[in-house]
């Protein structure tokens, strides 16, 4: 069919027309080969602009369209849709960027106009050779995989499951709950963290549409949006989850005590244990590293097993449910899902790296998370704030920004520390009457709802705020009053003086940082990471939960430090995005994919390893490479690399690209 091309030049108000002579460009376009009509308009993206194109397609029978306006990033979708509405295949449309690439960066109007002509000419020549492509759709699997059972993962799981779609919630620890279940109170309302979280945990644990896989980790993900295949390792718990009633009798029998990671090593737990009272699932787990039986079993010896056998002499029974199974091994499960939500959370910064703060070296220097456990009624000290020697404290120093806002560690602000530090001040004053609380801060960042009000309350209620990042925490006393104390040395920048503040306890408000295995997780889910190490969202402003991989979303602190309400909002947003894909039921896949001419392919496999989307496989029977169109993103790497020229990138054929270059060079 003879090409009949319509060319439309946009003024973009004065953005383009202020520099480019649009009338001249229009006249120029009229003279180009195959152009049936060329016009210009103030805003091509507006309704009248769109209508103009549609009417021309219908009235003049245009079979190609070029719009010279802004970046295709902005409006390619708009104009493709306009063409489709008028019955023209979207791949018969071409856009010339005469704004970002021309009017905005070229001062001389004469030069800008010449450049715009060249760009229009290139687009016209290119569109001449463009061909309609078939737009394919693939069905979407309605299951969703959620990785991480903290508040982010739980919230997203509940949102999706409540709409009657299946969720696989995978958590690597023995219980869901994440960091939030370790916290005592939440700022600024001072709600009990566990009280607001445990109802959600309980629902997640028993929801008919949630399959909770605790003590499990995702090993591999393959496939694409709508059709992911996921391999999950269910770590051996040595407990039959079906049988275990969570009675806890096994714990009493176990002779091995080790430090309790849930209480950050401040308390003890047994080698067979339930992580905490409200654990979901409320099932025991055996820590194989510390269980005498499992360790000796490697040497072929059968010892202990008290949890299983009980103590006969004393008439104490072992596990009555018969749930203990020392023969368990890691199991692999494969599931199919349409969407993946990554909610893997954060690690806290290790403050022993900042030697001068004395963590791990001086007694009574603790981290914020340790304080959360200490002040919690179910924590190792049952909520009593005690010094190492068991005595009560009279004063406490809280150091903000430990590892945050520090070029040597993390440049970013961790967003939650100001508020949780002030919360600590409030809690310690509630628990220990008459205590002196010093907050050492750089700036108070109380940006959230009710935050500034909380800060003002703390100011009024007697917390002492000292502006300055402390240089050191030391036990080297210089005066008799300092003897036996921890001295926080800092420059009080409000009075311009060095000060030494003797306190009994120092709490380090440590930064939130990416998980230590973030790189590996990023690889499994094809995620990118920002320079700070957190997972990268598709767009920082307008697409904050999607990622560059369609169908994979990131929520909560794995994307960057944030507080609980922001995390919950993000989780709900990701759930909505996943549900949108599920409810549509099918996905369009990119039609501009690569294509292999099997007649020409020599079977060298060069392309197989180069494909960044693992879309190319090798057909052993035919001895040729094959492209999975659903996986192919049309990046063109294979086409460029193919030594025998067997691969064509649809919509980016050699003919089209050469024509575009010729157009530029007129």
């Amino acid at each position, binding site marked *: 069919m003879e090409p009949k091309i319509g060319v439309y030049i946009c003024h973009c108000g004065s953005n383009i027309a202020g520099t480019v002579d649009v009338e001249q460009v229009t006249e120029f376009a009229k003279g180009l080969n195959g152009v049936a009509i060329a016009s210009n308009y103030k805003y091509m993206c507006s309704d009248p602009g769109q209508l103009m194109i549609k009417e021309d397609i219908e009235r003049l029978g245009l079979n190609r369209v070029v719009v010279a306006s802004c970046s295709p990033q902005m409006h390619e979708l708009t104009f493709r849709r306009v063409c489709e509405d008028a019955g023209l295949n979207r791949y018969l449309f071409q856009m010339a960027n005469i704004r970002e690439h021309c009017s905005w960066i070229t001062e001389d109007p004469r030069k800008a106009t010449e450049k715009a002509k060249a760009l229009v000419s290139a687009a016209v020549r290119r569109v001449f050779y463009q061909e309609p492509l078939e737009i394919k759709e693939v069905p979407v699997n309605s299951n969703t995989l959620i990785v991480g059972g903290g508040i982010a993962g739980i919230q997203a799981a509940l949102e999706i499951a409540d709409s009657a779609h299946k969720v696989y919630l995978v958590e690597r620890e023995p219980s869901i709950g994440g960091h939030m279940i370790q916290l005592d109170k939440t700022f600024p309302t001072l709600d009990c963290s566990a009280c607001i979280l445990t109802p959600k945990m309980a629902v997640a644990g028993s929801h008919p549409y949630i399959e909770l896989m605790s003590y499990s980790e995702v090993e591999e993900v393959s496939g694409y949006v709508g059709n992911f295949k996921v391999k999950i390792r269910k770590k051996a718990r040595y407990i039959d989850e079906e049988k275990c009633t969570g009675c806890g009798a096994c714990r009493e029998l176990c002779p091995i005590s080790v430090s309790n990671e849930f209480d950050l090593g401040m308390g003890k737990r047994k080698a067979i244990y339930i992580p905490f009272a409200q654990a979901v699932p409320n099932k025991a787990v055996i820590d194989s590293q510390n269980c005498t039986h499992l360790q000796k079993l490697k040497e072929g010896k059968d010892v202990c097993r008290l949890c299983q056998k009980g103590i006969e002499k004393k008439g104490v029974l072992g596990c009555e449910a018969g749930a203990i199974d020392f023969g368990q091994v890691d199991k692999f499960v494969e599931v199919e899902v349409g969407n993946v939500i990554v909610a893997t959370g954060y690690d806290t910064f290790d403050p022993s790296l*900042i*030697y*001068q703060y004395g963590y791990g070296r001086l007694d009574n220097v603790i981290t914020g998370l340790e304080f959360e456990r200490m002040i919690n009624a179910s924590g190792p000290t049952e909520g009593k704030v005690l010094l190492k020697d068991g005595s009560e404290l009279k004063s406490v120093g809280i150091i903000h920004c430990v590892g945050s806002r520090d070029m040597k560690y993390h440049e970013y602000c961790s967003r939650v520390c100001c508020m949780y530090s002030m919360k600590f001040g409030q809690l310690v004053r509630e628990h220990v009457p008459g205590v002196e609380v010093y907050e050492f801060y750089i700036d108070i960042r109380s940006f959230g709802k009710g935050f500034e009000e909380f800060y003002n309350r703390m100011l009024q209620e007697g917390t002492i705020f000292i502006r300055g990042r402390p240089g050191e925490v*030391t*036990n*080297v006393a*210089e005066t008799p009053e300092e003897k036996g104390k921890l001295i926080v040395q800092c420059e009080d920048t409000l009075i311009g003086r060095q000060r030494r503040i003797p306190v009994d306890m120092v709490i380090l408000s440590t930064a939130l940082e990416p998980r230590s295995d973030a790189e590996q997780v990023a690889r499994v889910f094809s995620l990118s990471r920002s320079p700070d190490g957190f997972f990268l969202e598709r767009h920082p402003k307008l697409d904050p939960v999607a990622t560059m991989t369609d169908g994979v979303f990131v929520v909560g602190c794995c994307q960057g430090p944030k507080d609980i309400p922001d995390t919950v909002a993000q989780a709900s947003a990701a759930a909505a995005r996943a549900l949108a894909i599920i409810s549509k039921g099918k996905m369009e896949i990119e039609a501009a994919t690569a294509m292999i001419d099997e007649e020409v392919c020599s079977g060298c496999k060069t392309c197989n390893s180069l494909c960044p989307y693992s879309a190319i496989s090798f057909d052993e029977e035919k001895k040729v490479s094959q492209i999975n169109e659903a996986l192919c993103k049309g990046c063109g790497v294979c086409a460029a690399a193919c030594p025998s020229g067997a691969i064509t990138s649809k919509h980016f054929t050699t003919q089209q690209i050469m024509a575009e270059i010729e157009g530029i060079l007129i």
Partner: protein
Amino acid sequence: MRYYAYFPGCSAEATASALGLSTQAVAKALDIELIELEDWNCCGSTPYSGIDEVEATCIAARDLALAEKTGLDLVSPCNNCYITLNKADSFLKEYPQLKERVGEALAAANLKYEGGVRVRHLVEVLFNDITPGVIASRVKRSLDGLKVAPYYGCQLTRPGFGFDDPEFPKSLDSLIESLGAEAVPFALKARCCGGAFIISEEDMALELIRKLLDNALENGAQCMITPCPLCQTNLDVYQGKVNSKFKTKFNLPILFPSQLMGVAFGLAPRSLGLGKNAVSPNKVLASYL
């Protein structure tokens, strides 16, 4: 044999001649050839830059230009020379205008500096090039049982030219341990001794010195080592003044790392300048000499 261009600095030639002596003695024992930079001049030290930054950079740059001709790394045993020469080098790389002016001054003496010299401290060379393991293998009399406080001073690691942690340096600690001695925990190991303020603000400096001595003793130190000749002078020579001012009884020998190393290598006390210390180390070191 390893070769380095050697910048002794004024102190190692005069007030801290024990530093110069012991550095050469220990270098020989470790197969290090320190080739003294021909016609070197004073690095300018810290005070000069307080008066005229450009002139101060010029005189340090002259040393750098001379060192560049040798093609060797420039090693100094003095903290002050180390930081001054390094500072000049980094300023010349960072500020093109300064580089131009300094370049003119050098050209008048038929010299030029292209920025190709690595300025290094003796402690860093011992730690990174020679390594504590090799040093341990040269020990003839292990300093087993000797408790040593490692004192770094402020200029060795601050503002930091990248060789040790500015807040919590460890290199001297491991050198002490390579000799068989024990490095005691010393919280104030990178704290200021008062430096040149001992001249202008004596009371303040004496208080700083007192704190250092006090903290080292509290941790059980029998002697202290410091690579900095100014710190060594303050802590050693002014110990008596501290004692009379604060009614204390400090008697802590303050040695250079090279002196202690020389003892462990079994070198003659004379070659290490052990007789030049104000607080005599003879008693503490008696069983190792």
